[in-house]
Structures are given as structure tokens and as C-alpha cells.
């Protein structure tokens, strides 16, 4: 304990009640003392005991002069009718008076004695407020006078009963702490009872405590704070300097006697907050703190005392860490039982003494004071055992995964530590977002396969609250339809089937008889366009139809169904064009005398239509070309997107969906979306554009900006649902390349979402939701690591993630292991801590060069020969966690070196290896969907279409498309083309469209164009039984390739001016040089690979090849239909990429692990499971790493499932 403050006043004093804040001491000039000046003035003063105040001496906060000096001061709390909130100060004067003051007035130095009553005959030495009824207090004086005062009616005090005989001064009074009507009073007489306990209900003493020795001179009494029947009495007799603990149930002798003081004990104070703490002070100048409940009672601590002994000791009611002593040298000292360094030295004491001494001009009074003994602040001794208020009884703390760790200690049994309740710690799972979890589970289930996903979208659509939501889900949903683009059109308000039907109506009526065959065809196909012949005939019919009639037919359609911007003939033409119905468009143009338009459209519509229209064109007409028309013809969609009126965004989007090539579609949709985003009102529509383009990243950003107001759980759930569904879509389309991968914003959202799931204890779900390993955000890596390890030793289906922090621990506390230190610096600056190698990754061809013996020399210089860059990060793998892998000299070391490349992204994360996986893998990964096979393969598959030399390049280009598309139906056998020359075939608008742009580039080549047009017209994808006969699908492009030579889905290669060398003047033998310059990522030609001898697949992975190839063979043996056969061909082609990667050992271990799982599933014929593994690989891996072969593997699994092989 340590003295921390003092008040330089000789006074009787009282602490402010526990309720009051701040804490004050009320000090009334002590009647029994004289100060150095022998002044007879009397004062009542307030001192603020402010623990934040560094001053040692407490300054007076308020002071009033009083008439009388004080024997006793108490401070009662406020009560209901009390005029003050800070309670009342009641003082007993030396002349028998009771005076009551308002402390608030004292603070204002205002004398305002609320009550002054002189009922008592002698000095009022004892006062105590009732603990329960705050308006009651008791007072005691000479002659055993005791009065009970009610502050509500202070004029009429009552007595607790008849006076005790023989009468004596009432030295102390104390109300029971548990039972409100029990009061104890003491007597200093040794002859009678030393303590009388009164029952105020009966108005009589109920017990008189008499010390058996008869020598007890009772100075003070204090009730047990918790036990109603116990009290302590102190004896001021120097011959019996004890404190007795009585239990009134056994009131014949004291239960315990506290013996330590050598002279009479003057004051006791029992700590209200901890009954194990009792303070006593005596004339022997000692102050002790006891545990009276101990057996035997023990002294916990002794207080530092001053020169003079203390007559009074009191716990601070509010702050039990501090207590006060009043000493006869005119000083109230404040102590802290917590120890700590004394704030100041005893200079202040000294100063006080000096003041006294000065007053006398001598040392007369200071002589016997043991001065200077505390010049050095000594380390104080705290209580032997901590007070109760330090012992935290309960605490609940959160830990990872929404776990709450809590414990509690039963307070009532606190003294008998026998119960087991204080021994248990509970770990609970906190779930606050029930809805989120339900929705999340729903979503994860939906993501398992397409059917689920479609059904999910459907449910979402039904539940959609707003139009925006509805649009959103409709758009997402159609992605799972076989022809998403067409469905998109419908959603935008363009229903090709419906439109066509309406257009055809008059035609069909007239033509029913002759055209029943083709009509049936149209119906059965649900065809979106008609063939050239049809068109021809239709025009003839249409010519006869009156314009007025047509408008009648179309107008309601336009105005009611499709809220287009205009309703005139322009819009009709637009509509027809938007859905690729050239005939109708030409027709409409003709009718509105737009000959030029008609011709241009007719050119797109096929040779016959063109011829016909051209004729009519010469007949006459003026024309104005709408932007749309021009865009259709010139294929300049970028311009449309850039300059279209945003109000017509639907049209713009529809035209893009109809015409734009897959590559362009993405960028154009994005661009349109971007423009929409810039417009606050149309912002939300931008999301739809991003759905069409599959751009998750943009979608997320747009969504976040639209829904930025609040950030609660459901909001993010809303977004994640859309994100994940779109991700799945993009995965399927996956031709978009970048579209399927998660950008920064989406990764952030995903990780936020994963955090939320984790916080609800859904660790597994959170793990599923985390973006792929390749995502570099450190926060995601950290979460992954935490999720993984918090689920126990192994998480099925996951590779242990790399520890995302740099290790500093090995330097703490134990000697760094010599082998570890230097090596850490070698590998990627040692920042990425490579995880312990859980499994031995097979040695690659490269690793074979590292023999165990010369390992150390090898490592720093090691570069995998085949695919150098992605392997670099692996180099740091040897520096595995020291505690687990203390040595590398063991024979297993080599296998550790080539631990999984999944390390790569992480080391990149830590900023040390800025090698993007996509960059480094480009050479070996067929990243681009349209890759150039070797010239040989091209020319082989070219077949026999007659091509003028100047156009040689074109088929080459087309052929390239055939080989690369991940999900495309296999290319048509060119030889089959002629067979398709059926009159019923319908013409495909996009193909025609793609032909058009070549015109400006090679104007002289009209003949060839016409030729191509014819070719285009005769190839009929829609009416064929090909799996995906969509006029706007990328697949379609491939189907059309042999006949649509100049089309270039790779973007601007064919655009006039952009790439002149591709414009048809270059001989074909330049092809291979040109391709790299224009194609984003020239890939290793697969054909070339096939021709060169290959290194074997590492033995441990050969099982993959065996399994996969076997399955293909099995499937082929089932004599599947053409479609499946083609798919299987595609599979084998794609799997070659995989085998190449295996040979190069360029796959991350998690992918390889996943593949093995897929192979296992194949072996057990559990194709559904195989698909699940497949999905997992896809979601967790770097897209570019796996895009070449995973789709093939998927369709293989699907086929195998279908065929039940």
C-alpha cells in the first residue's frame, strides 16, 4: 500500500457516498484537536479526491465557516425527496448539535445549514446513515443517548428503545448491512455490555454483547458486509488491544480475535466490496489490513503511517482501491492498496511539520516525530492476495470463426472454491446472420451443377422484389439456356421467333400450299431467319403488300411489346435488323423507298436477295442511312456503342448481341456498360451489359456503386449470389479469358463474404467461397491459411495453403538453425514462407538434374529448363519450416524442392516475384481460344473450296478458329459442305454481316464476295442437327468458316486499315509471321507439338493419361452419335494440352491433385464426383493454366455420365 495524497487539515471527515462522482471528502474541524495556531474557528470543507490530479496535496474545493466544531461527520446519499443530488452532510457537534448541510452549497462556499438541532445533551460522537432507507440516520451522544432521525421529518427524532444502563457515551453506531432495522451501538464502559444491538421494529435491544473478560472498551463497531449476524468490535484498552469478530448467533464469546496491535485500537473499517479486507488502526501507530475471515485471521498488509497515530480509518466507498486515515497531526492521508510508486516524497509531510514548527518557532511538537524516514520512495508491498474487485469473475472473448470463449465464476461460492463451476470454460458458436447462412447454403448448392443453378436463378427470379432484381436474374438465368444471346435479345424485348412469325404471316398465308415443307421447317426450327430462297419469294409477295397494311401489322407490335424509341418505319427496320431478319428489313426499306438501304441490307442478306434488291434499287429511290444500318453494314459497332443515345441502350445491346463477334461482344458490352454507369439514372442497367459480357469485375464495381448506401450482410449476399452465378456462366463460356477470372473488386467482395461466413462458423463454406489461389490479395491469402488450419490437420480436397506471413518466430528465443538462415535469403528473399511439404510432388525432368548430394549448390542456380518462369518461386520451397524440416540433407529433399507451384502466386503476393502466372504460362498454355494450328493442318482441313490466291489467307484464319475454341462443336467436315446445298436452308445473318466489312477493303473483289455470300447462304447451321445451331454463338462462326473466309472473330484484324497486311494482299506463306503480330498470345501450335517427339509424362501422372484416354476409347466404343463423337474428338485434342503440361510439369499441385481425384472418380465410375472435383479445380485455379483442357475433361465426364459407361 502506498500513500498517494493528503489533506492538510485536522478534522473529522467523511467520504462522499459511493454513488457520487467525483469523489469528495467532507472535513469538519475536529473538536478534539487544536491546530498549531490554537484557532477556535470551525470550518466544514470539501476536498475533491481526483485520481487524475497529480498533486499530492488535495486542494480545498469548497469551504464554509461554522459555529461549532465537529465530533463526527457523515455523508448520506441522496434519496427520493432529497433536495440535493449529492446527498447531505450530517455533522455532530461538540455541543450536542446535529447540523445538516447541502454539499452543493459548500462547493459554492455558501453557508446553508438545512437543519440545526440540539436535541442531544453532550458531544455527538457517533452518526451513521441507514444503508437501505437513505433518509434515516442514527446519532449517539453521552448518557447512552441514541436518536433515529428521519430527514423527511427531522424535527422529531425517535429513540431505538430504553437507554442502556449504566449509561455511557455512545462511541459508535452502525446499521446492519443486510437487515435494515438493525442497529448496533457501542459503549466504552467495561462494566456493561460493550455493544448493544437494537431492533427498531420492536424498539428494543435484541442482544447485548458482553466481553467475557469484561475488559473490552469498545471504540468502534462494523458489521460484516455480507453476513448479517457478524460484526467486529475494536477495543481501545491498551491492555486488550484487540479486534473481536462476533457472530450474534453464538454471542457468548467472540468467534475470532484479531491480535496484533500493541496499544488500543481506535477504528475499524470493513471493506464493503470485499469482506476479506478489514482495516484497523491503533494507538500503537500501526494500521493493518486483515482478512478476518481467514482461519486464523491474517494480516494481509500493513500501511505506512505518519508521525502521529491515527484515530480513524475508512475505506473509500466508491473506490475500494483507496482508503483514508485521519491522524492526530492534523492530516487526512489517502492511501492506495494497490501499491505503485508514491507520487511524491514525504516533503509535504515535512512541509506541514515545518509549518507547525514555524508557528512555535521551535521543534517542540515535531520532536518525537520519526522524520525523514521515507525519503526514498520504497517499493510498496501489495496485499498478499488480491482484493476481490481485481479478480475478474467472467469474460467472454471472441476467437476465429465466430467462436466465443467464456467462463464464469459463481460469486456466491467464491469463498468455497470447491464447486467446479469456476473451472469450466465454454466454447460457443455465435451465429448472428441466420438468413445469410441459409442463403449461402442455397447458393453453394446451386453452384454444384447447371440444373441446380438454373433452378436457383428461377427461384430468385420469382422472389425478385424489384424490376432491377428481376432483370438481373432473368439475364443470369438465360446464360444457362442453349442460346443465351437469343434469350438476351428476348429479354431486351426482341423476340425473334415472334417477330419472324409476324413478318411471315402474310407470306405464309399465300404460300401455304407451295411452301408447306419449308414452312414446317421454319416452325420446327423455331428459326430466327429464313433462307435466301424464302427471302426471294417473300420479297415478291411483300411487294404486293401495301405499306399501310404492314404498318398496321407492325405498329402494335412495336408500341405494345417493345418500348422502342420510335415507332416509324425506321424502328421496324431496326428491329428486323436487330434480329437479323434481312428480308423483312429489305422489304421495309423498299417500301419506304430506301433503295440504298435496301441494297446494302440485301447484300448482307444473300446473293439472291441482293440481286433482286439491286434491280429495284436502280428503279429509283432516295435514301438516308441510319446509323444502325451503317453499323450493320460496316460492322462498326464500337461507334454505335460510343455514340448511341443512352436512352436506347437496349437497342444498342440488342444489336451487339446479334452481331458482335464474341471478342468484340465483351469489350463492346463493357463499353456500353461503362457509358451507362456514367449516367446516374441508367447506372443499374450497366449491370445487365456486364452480365452479357460476363465481366464479373465490372459487375461488382457497378453493383457496389449502385448499392453503396448500406453494407449489411444481405447486401453482400445479394451481390455474391449474382457474382457466383455469373462466374459459373463465365466459366462455361470461358472463352472470354479474363472474364472468368476474378478481379480485385470481386476478390475483395468474395473475401469479405468469406470473412462473414467464417465469422458465423462456416469455415468450410468460407473456404469454398474464397477466390482462386492465384488472387494476390494478401488478405485473402491470410484468410485461406487461417481457414485451412482452423479446420484441423487436413481439409479434404484442399492443399495446405502457403503461410502468408514472413516468419519471425525462429529468431525469438532459440538459436536460429544454421541451415535455415542462409537459405531463407536465397529463395524469393525468404519472405514467402513455404509450407511444409505435405506430399511429395513427383520429380520432374528438371528435378532429375538435382541430385540430393549436390542439392545445395543446385538450388540457387536452378532453373527448370522447360518452363522457366513459373517455377522460379518453387525455389524457395526447400526452406521449409525449420521446426518441421530442420534438415535438407536427407534423401527426401529433392522432392521438396519442387513443391507445388501454387507457391508462385503467393510469393508474388509478398512482392518478391512479380511474375504473373498468366504471363509465364502463355507460351505453353493455349490461352487463346483461337489458335493457329500449323499451316499443314490448316491446309489439310481446308478442303476444296475454290479460293482465289489473293484470298488464301482467309480460310487459314478461319481454320484457326476451328482448332482452338474450347467448347465449340467440332468443325464441320469441309467435305460435307456441298451436301448441305439444300434450298430449304436458311441464311445466317451474322455470317452475312461478317462478310460485309471486307467490301471496303477489297472493293475489286465483288465477285468473290458474291461467291462467299452464296456459300454462306447454303450452309445452314440452323436447320442442321448440330448441337448448337445458334446464329450468334461463337460456335456458329466455326461452322461457317469454310464459306465465310474473310470473317475474323479475333477482332480488328480484318478491319480495313487496321491490319492492311491481313487485308488480302499478303500471300499465304506470310501467314505464320503475321499471326504473332496480331494475335494477342501466339501459342505453341499444337500440331507442331504433335509432330515433334515428346518427352514422356512423368510416371506418377501417366495414370491420368491412361484413365482419360481409356474413357474416351470406351465412349467411342459405344458407337455414339456424331455429335458425341465430335465432342470426344475435341476432348482428346484438349487433353493433349494437359499431357503437354504434365510433361512440362507446369501444373500446380492442387490442379494435379484435383486431376488425380478426377481420374479416381473415373475409375470408380463416379462421374458426378468427377465433375465436382472438376468444378473445384476450376474455381480454385488460375484460369489460364487450365482453360485449355478442363472443358474437354468436363465434356468427357458428362458424356461418360450420359453413356453410363
Amino acid at each position, binding site marked *: 500500500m502506498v500513500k*498517494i495524497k493528503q489533506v492538510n487539515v485536522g478534522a473529522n471527515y467523511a467520504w462522499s457516498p459511493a454513488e457520487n*462522482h467525483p469523489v469528495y471528502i467532507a472535513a469538519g474541524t475536529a473538536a478534539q484537536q487544536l491546530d498549531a495556531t490554537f484557532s477556535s474557528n470551525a470550518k466544514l470543507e470539501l476536498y475533491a479526491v481526483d*485520481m*487524475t490530479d*497529480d498533486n499530492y496535496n488535495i486542494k480545498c474545493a469548497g469551504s464554509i465557516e461554522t459555529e461549532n466544531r465537529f465530533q463526527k461527520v457523515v455523508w448520506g446519499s441522496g434519496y427520493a425527496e432529497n433536495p440535493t443530488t449529492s446527498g447531505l452532510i450530517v455533522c455532530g457537534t461538540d455541543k450536542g448539535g446535529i447540523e445538516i448541510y447541502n454539499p452543493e452549497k459548500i462547493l459554492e462556499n455558501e453557508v446553508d445549514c438545512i437543519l440545526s438541532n440540539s436535541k442531544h445533551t453532550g458531544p455527538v460522537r457517533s452518526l451513521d446513515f441507514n444503508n437501505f432507507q437513505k433518509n434515516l440516520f442514527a446519532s449517539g451522544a453521552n448518557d447512552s443517548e441514541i436518536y433515529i432521525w428521519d430527514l423527511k421529518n427531522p424535527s422529531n427524532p425517535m429513540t431505538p428503545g430504553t437507554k442502556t444502563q449504566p449509561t455511557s457515551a455512545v462511541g459508535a453506531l452502525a446499521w446492519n448491512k443486510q437487515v435494515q432495522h438493525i442497529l448496533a451501538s457501542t459503549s466504552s464502559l467495561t462494566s456493561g455490555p460493550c455493544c448493544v444491538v437494537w431492533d427498531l421494529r420492536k424498539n428494543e435491544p435484541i442482544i447485548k454483547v458482553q466481553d467475557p473478560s469484561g475488559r473490552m472498551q469498545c471504540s468502534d463497531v462494523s458489521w460484516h458486509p455480507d453476513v448479517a449476524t457478524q460484526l467486529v468490535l475494536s477495543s481501545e484498552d491498551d491492555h486488550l488491544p484487540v479486534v473481536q469478530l462476533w457472530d450474534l448467533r453464538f454471542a457468548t464469546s467472540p468467534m475470532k480475535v484479531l491480535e496484533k496491535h500493541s496499544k488500543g485500537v481506535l477504528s475499524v473499517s470493513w471493506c464493503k466490496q470485499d469482506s476479506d479486507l478489514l482495516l484497523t488502526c491503533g494507538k500503537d501507530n500501526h494500521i493493518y489490513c486483515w482478512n478476518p475471515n481467514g482461519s486464523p485471521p491474517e494480516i494481509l498488509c500493513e500501511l505506512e503511517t505518519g508521525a502521529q497515530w491515527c484515530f480513524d480509518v475508512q475505506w473509500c466507498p466508491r*473506490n475500494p*482501491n483507496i482508503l483514508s486515515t485521519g491522524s492526530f497531526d492534523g492530516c487526512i492521508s489517502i492511501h*492506495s492498496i*494497490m*501499491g*505503485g*510508486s508514491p507520487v511524491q516524497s514525504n516533503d509535504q509531510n515535512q512541509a506541514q511539520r515545518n509549518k507547525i514548527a514555524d508557528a512555535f518557532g521551535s521543534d517542540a511538537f515535531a520532536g518525537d516525530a520519526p522524520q525523514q524516514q521515507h525519503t526514498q520512495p520504497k517499493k510498496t508491498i*501489495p496485499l498478499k*492476495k*488480491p482484493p476481490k474487485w*481485481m*479478480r*475478474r*469473475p*467472467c*469474460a*467472454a*472473448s*471472441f*476467437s*476465429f*470463426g*465466430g*467462436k466465443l*470463449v*467464456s*467462463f*464464469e465464476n459463481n*460469486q456466491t461460492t467464491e469463498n468455497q*472454491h470447491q464447486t467446479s463451476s*469456476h*473451472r*469450466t*470454460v465454454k*466454447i*460457443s*458458436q*455465435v451465429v*448472428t446472420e441466420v438468413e445469410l447462412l441459409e442463403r449461402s447454403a442455397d447458393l453453394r448448392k446451386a453452384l454444384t451443377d447447371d440444373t441446380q443453378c438454373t433452378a436457383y436463378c428461377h427461384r430468385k427470379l420469382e422472389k425478385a422484389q424489384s424490376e432491377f432484381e428481376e432483370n438481373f436474374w432473368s439475364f443470369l438465368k438465360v446464360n444457362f439456356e442453349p442460346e443465351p444471346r437469343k434469350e438476351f435479345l428476348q429479354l431486351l424485348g426482341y423476340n425473334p421467333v415472334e417477330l419472324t412469325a409476324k413478318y411471315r404471316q402474310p407470306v405464309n398465308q399465300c404460300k401455304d400450299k407451295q411452301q408447306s415443307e419449308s414452312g414446317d421447317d421454319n416452325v420446327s426450327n423455331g428459326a430466327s431467319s429464313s433462307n435466301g430462297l424464302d427471302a426471294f419469294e417473300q420479297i415478291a409477295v411483300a411487294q404486293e403488300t401495301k405499306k399501310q397494311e404492314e404498318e398496321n401489322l407492325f405498329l402494335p407490335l412495336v408500341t405494345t411489346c417493345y418500348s422502342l424509341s420510335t415507332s416509324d418505319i425506321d424502328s421496324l427496320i431496326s428491329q428486323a435488323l436487330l434480329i437479323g431478319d434481312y428480308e423483312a428489313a429489305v422489304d421495309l426499306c423498299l417500301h419506304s423507298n430506301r433503295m440504298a438501304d435496301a441494297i446494302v441490307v440485301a447484300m448482307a442478306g444473300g446473293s439472291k436477295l441482293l440481286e433482286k434488291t439491286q434491280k429495284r434499287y436502280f428503279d429509283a429511290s432516295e435514301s438516308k442511312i441510319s446509323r444502325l444500318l451503317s453499323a450493320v453494314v460496316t460492322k462498326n459497332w464500337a461507334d454505335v456503342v460510343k455514340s448511341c443515345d443512352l436512352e436506347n441502350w437496349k437497342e444498342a445491346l440488342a444489336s451487339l448481341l446479334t452481331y458482335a463477334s464474341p471478342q468484340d461482344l465483351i469489350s463492346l458490352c463493357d463499353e456500353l456498360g461503362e457509358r451507362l454507369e456514367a449516367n446516374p439514372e441508367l447506372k443499374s442497367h450497366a449491370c445487365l451489359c456486364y452480365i452479357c459480357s460476363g465481366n464479373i469485375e465490372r459487375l461488382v464495381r457497378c453493383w457496389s456503386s449502385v448499392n453503396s448506401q448500406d453494407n*449489411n450482410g444481405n447486401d453482400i449476399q445479394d451481390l455474391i449470389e449474382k457474382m457466383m452465378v455469373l462466374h459459373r456462366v463465365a466459366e462455361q463460356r470461358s472463352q472470354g479469358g479474363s472474364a472468368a477470372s476474378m478481379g480485385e473488386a470481386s476478390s475483395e467482395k468474395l473475401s469479405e463474404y468469406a*470473412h462473414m461466413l467464417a*465469422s458465423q462458423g462456416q469455415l468450410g463454406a468460407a473456404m469454398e467461397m474464397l477466390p482462386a489461389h492465384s488472387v494476390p490479395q494478401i*488478405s485473402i491469402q491470410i484468410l485461406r491459411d*487461417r481457414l485451412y*488450419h482452423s479446420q*484441423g490437420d487436413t481439409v479434404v480436397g484442399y492443399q495446405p495453403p502457403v*503461410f502468408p*506471413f514472413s*516468419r519471425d*518466430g525462429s529468431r*525469438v*528465443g*532459440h538459436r536460429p538453425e544454421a541451415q535455415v538462415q542462409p537459405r531463407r535469403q536465397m529463395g524469393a528473399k525468404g519472405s514467402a514462407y513455404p509450407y511444409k511439404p505435405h506430399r511429395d510432388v513427383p520429380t520432374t525432368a528438371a528435378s532429375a538434374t538435382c541430385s540430393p548430394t549436390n542439392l545445395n549448390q543446385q538450388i540457387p542456380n536452378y532453373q527448370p529448363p522447360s518452363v522457366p518462369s513459373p517455377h522460379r518461386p518453387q525455389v524457395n520451397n526447400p526452406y521449409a519450416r525449420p*521446426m518441421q524440416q530442420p534438415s535438407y540433407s536427407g534423401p527426401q529433399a529433392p522432392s521438396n524442392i519442387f513443391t507445388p507451384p501454387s507457391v508462385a502466386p503467393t510469393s508474388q503476393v509478398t*512482392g518478391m516475384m512479380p511474375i504473373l502466372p498468366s504471363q509465364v504460362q502463355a507460351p505453353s498454355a493455349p490461352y487463346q481460344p483461337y489458335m493457329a494450328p500449323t499451316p499443314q493442318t490448316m491446309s489439310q482441313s481446308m478442303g476444296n473450296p475454290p479460293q482465289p490466291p489473293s484470298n488464301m489467307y482467309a480460310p487459314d484464319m478461319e481454320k484457326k478458329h476451328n482448332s482452338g475454341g474450347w467448347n465449340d462443336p467440332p468443325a464441320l467436315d469441309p467435305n460435307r459442305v456441298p451436301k448441305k446445298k439444300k434450298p430449304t436452308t436458311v441464311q445466317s445473318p451474322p455470317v452475312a454481316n461478317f462478310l460485309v466489312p471486307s467490301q471496303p477493303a477489297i472493293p475489286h473483289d465483288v465477285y468473290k464476295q458474291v461467291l462467299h455470300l452464296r456459300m454462306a447462304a447454303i450452309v445452314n447451321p440452323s436447320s442442321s442437327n448440330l448441337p448448337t445451331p445458334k446464329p450468334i454463338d461463337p460456335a456458329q462462326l466455326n461452322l461457317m468458316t469454310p464459306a465465310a473466309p474473310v470473317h475474323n472473330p479475333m477482332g480488328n484484324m480484318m478491319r480495313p486499315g487496321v491490319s492492311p497486311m491481313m487485308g488480302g494482299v499478303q500471300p499465304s506463306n506470310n501467314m505464320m509471321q503475321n499471326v504473332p503480330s496480331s494475335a494477342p498470345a501466339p501459342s505453341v501450335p499444337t500440331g507442331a507439338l504433335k509432330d515433334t517427339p515428346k518427352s514422356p509424362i512423368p510416371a506418377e501422372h501417366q495414370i491420368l493419361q491412361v484413365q482419360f484416354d481409356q474413357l474416351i476409347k470406351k465412349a467411342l466404343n459405344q458407337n455414339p452419335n456424331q455429335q458425341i463423337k465430335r465432342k470426344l474428338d475435341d476432348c482428346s485434342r484438349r487433353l493433349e494440352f494437359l499431357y503437354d503440361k504434365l510433361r512440362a510439369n507446369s501444373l500446380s499441385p492442387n490442379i494435379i491433385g484435383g486431376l488425380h481425384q478426377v481420374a479416381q472418380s473415373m475409375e470408380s465410375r463416379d462421374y458426378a464426383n468427377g465433375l465436382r472435383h472438376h468444378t473445384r479445380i476450376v474455381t480454385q485455379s488460375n484460369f489460364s493454366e487450365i482453360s485449355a483442357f478442363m472443358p474437354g475433361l468436363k465434356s468427357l465426364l458428362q458424356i461418360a455420365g450420359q453413356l453410363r459407361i
Partner: protein
Amino acid sequence: MVSVINTVDTLHEDMIHDAQMDYYGLQLATCSSDRTIRIFEVKNGTQRLLSTLQGHDGPVWQIAWSHPKYDKMLASCSYDRKVIIWKEQDGQWNKLHEYNDHDSSVNSVCWAPHELGLMLACGSSDGSVSVLKHHGDNQWEATKINNAHTGGCNAVSWAPAVVPGSLIEPPSQNQQNNFVKKFVSAGCDNLVKVWCEKDGRWEEEQKLQAHTDWVRDCAWAPSIGLPQSKIASCSQDRRVIIWTCDEATGGQWSSKTLNEFDDVVWHVSWSLTGDILAVSGGNNKVSLWKEKLDGDWSIVSDIKKGQQGSTE
């Protein structure tokens, strides 16, 4: 919804004062008035005592796990005025460092965010706060803030590592040295204080005054990407106060009383996502609180004494 998934009988011979899970939630450390610390492996509803750490001469008040990047370490503080840093090696826990420079009970220990390096703050009843900094090779440098809280310091809690002005973005590698080093302390002077290291010295940056009695505990909320600092404090005055400081408002702190309880509030703990606050009261009651959109706090769960689980 709170459901007990594991009940660990610690076999402590006296009151438990703290229980903390490690970073991954795999091991549980408990400390007690019986002067020991116990480490349990907790898995699938079962527990296994791994170790009992003996070294303190008084009740052990608090324990704190180090970040795994510094391997497995545990800091403990005790009424015996000592702070002990323990380290596990090969499953064995050993005393790594003992800090003896407090004059009174050490009531709280808290490791700094790992980004700041290996650093431990200790709050003591002697009114001071020590910051122990590891300098490699088991050299610990102690910086002491004397008289941080008159009457004693009850709790310390570090602010999440952020770079000034960039509370929105997690700092990149090259900004690492710019991390603000800040912690909050609570004391028997009824104050909550924010300390900030400037030029290697700890300065009192803010004195948060609203409690009218001892502040028992304080907890700096994890950063959730918002440009806002948030501190929860609880007190003998039975109140929990949430202090917030928006960067936008120029570093002004404002306070909001979460609730006034019917007993002393001993402990506050933020969920790792910073959206839920667990409040532990003297009546052995734990309640969970969540901030509503309007900024008020509402109770999401009330776990009563001895209750096995609780309803929403």
C-alpha cells in the same frame, strides 16, 4: 444464436480469469488464481490438456497468444507484478522472458498487431504501462509510460495496424514502416487513453472521459476497411461506451453509451469482423451487441449465467 460446442473442464484449483483461443482456434489457454496457465487442445467437442505452465507467484490475470508468424508464444501477467513470455518448442512450453519492472499487479497484456513487429503492451496497477519490444536474440527493450493511469491501469488494447490516411486500403509492402503504433488503455482514473508512438516515444494522444468509475476493460475494434477507429470500454459504472473517431472529422472522438447494465461490466470483446461486441458483466451474464444502421446498438443475444445456449 449461441450454442455451446465445447465445455472444457480446466481443473484449475481457483477462479479462472482469462481464456483465450490461439490464432487458428485450435488451442485454448486459460489462467487462474491458482497461479497456473493451462494449454488445451480443443477439437470436435473434446479437449486434451497439453501443458500446465507454472512460474507466477500470484493469480494470473490475463494471457495473450502471439501471432503465428512469431511461432507459438504466450504472454501472461499476474498479480505477482510479473509479465512472463512463454514459448512452445516441440510441444514444450518454456519461459522465454520475464519482465519484473512493475511495482504492482500487472493486469493486462496485449500483443501488437503482427505488422508492427513483436511488441507487447502491459498495464499495471502501479499506474504505468510498459511496452516490451523484441530486438532479436531474446532481447526485450522495455519502454515505460509512468503514471499512465493514476490508481492503476486495468487494460490495454492495440489499434489495428494502419498507415495514416489510408484506413481504407490495407497498406502495401513499402508502406510498412509507416504503420501507426497506437493502443488504448483503461484505468482506475475512470479514463480511457489513446497512446501513440512518435519518434520512439509514447505520447498520450487522447484522453477519453465519460466513465464515472473504474474503466475495467477496453478493446480497439478490428479494422473493417472503414476510415473509422472504434473502441469499446466498459466500467465499474456499469456502462459500456463506444468511442469512435472518423478520419473525416479530423480525429475527434465521440462517445456513445451502448447500454447501462445492472452490474459491473468486466470485459468487452469484438468479433473478428468487428461487428459484434461481447459484453461480460459481473452477474456472469454475457450479451452480444450489434450496431444498427442508425448507429444505435441492439442486443442480439443474451447468454445467462449457467445457460447452455441461448435464444436469439
